[in-house]
């Protein structure tokens, strides 16, 4: 069920260090949010908390104006958000089985799994990779398979941790295009990246994570016209 998710008073401590101390942060349906910050500033930790994969020391999670205790919030976040690692983990099986994982895990009937997986692979133009072992894919291919694997379970929010880090130009372009297509379908996306310029065309909000807290950055005229059907790549925008 789509709806805003608000995080208040998020605190995460490692040893003596308070890594995160965020006053408030809201993710709204249909929006694309970029979180940037220095290395070690806590971006991955924040994204994992948002996805229900990491327990914070303190946090109040509110969904549809109902405040949830962490146990319930965790379950809600895990069902609504799909988190993609910077280097997505590929299960040691074919690309087809990787994409089918989420459907099989939620006991979708076999015939539907087959149909949906093929549909998604064709949508992502990855059908030629279907029989290959996913562990042997290149970094760019892995990221696109991971995006397809996430899309198939139809999450409310997609949480992408440095989705284009350490990629060559071609792979960055293809991954960007896929993220843009997901967004044009109405998927809510939260991206963490150092590469603010690269995502400037698709983001609605930009936050900078600094000293454990989020600071909103004015993105001014660069704000994306995200209902546009045209797929504009950062390469075209920059005239490369």
């Amino acid at each position, binding site marked *: 069920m789509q709806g805003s998710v608000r995080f208040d008073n998020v605190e995460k401590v490692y040893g003596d260090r308070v890594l995160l101390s965020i006053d408030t942060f809201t993710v709204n349906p249909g929006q694309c949010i970029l979180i940037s910050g220095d290395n070690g500033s806590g971006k991955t930790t924040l994204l*994992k908390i948002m*996805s*229900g*994969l990491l327990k914070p020391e303190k946090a109040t999670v509110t969904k549809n104006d109902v405040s949830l205790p962490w146990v319930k919030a965790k379950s809600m976040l*895990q*069902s609504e*958000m*799909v*988190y993609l*690692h910077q*280097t*997505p*983990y590929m*299960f*040691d099986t074919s690309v087809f089985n990787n994409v089918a*994982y*989420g459907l099989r*895990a*939620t006991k979708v009937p076999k015939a539907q799994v087959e149909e949906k997986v093929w549909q998604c692979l064709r949508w992502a133009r990855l059908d030629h990779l279907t029989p290959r*072992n996913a*562990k*042997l894919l290149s970094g760019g291919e892995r990221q696109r398979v991971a995006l397809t*694997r*996430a899309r198939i*379970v139809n999450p409310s929010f997609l949480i992408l941790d440095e989705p284009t880090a350490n990629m060559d130009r071609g792979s960055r372009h293809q991954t960007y295009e896929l993220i843009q297509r997901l967004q044009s379908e109405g998927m809510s996306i939260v991206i963490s990246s150092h590469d603010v310029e690269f995502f400037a065309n698709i983001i609605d909000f930009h936050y900078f994570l600094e000293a454990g807290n989020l600071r909103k950055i004015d993105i001014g005229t660069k704000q994306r016209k995200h209902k546009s059907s045209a797929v504009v790549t950062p390469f075209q925008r920059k005239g490369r």
Partner: protein
Amino acid sequence: MQDIYQATKEALILLLGGDPGIWEIVGISFSVSLQAILYITPLSLLLAFLLAFGNFRGRRILISTFHTFLAIPAVVVGLTVYIFLSRNGPLGDLGLLFSQTAMVIGQMILAFPIVVAMSHSALQSSDRAIWETAKTLGASSPKAMFTVMYEARFGLFAAVIAAFSRIIAEVGCSMMVGGNILHHTRNIPTAIALETSKGEFAQGIALGLVLLFLALALNLLLSSARYRLEMA
């Protein structure tokens, strides 16, 4: 030298000629050790997973305990099981002493810490992203656990094989709680010990060869599985 040659020749004749006495002993060994490994593997893997991925009080002490029990001598396990199963022991009424069941119990106690400790190491070194990916894609905790185990399957397989190799070759515990009774509790290591003490080397060598071939076969199986994965 001539004696060793002669004994080895006789051993091969015994083995290849299908000597029923030899193969009965081999059968008892496999039956007892396979039962022991089958009974403890599910619980060992579950415990190893909890130790690797869980976060509960006493976790570190449990890990250290299992690693300590890796070095427990088989005769100490044998002595403990013997005390419990002997007529005056707490479980004496069950009448299990000098039975295959007693041998299975002893071997389960020996194999359990090996599978737990080695599986824990394999799971501990597996990528945390497996669990997180499974959970974020909607898997239940048991499903995510099986996914992690599948991804770490070669390490887990190696743990089970190491434990099986240890228990099928141990002599102390089987001798004490099994009693080395012919046609009943005489297995490969106890038979080797007995035949050697009698100066009957041929049967000892034959049974030793079975153990060596078994070790070779298990290791080849593991290597070929790893090779297939790397070549996939």
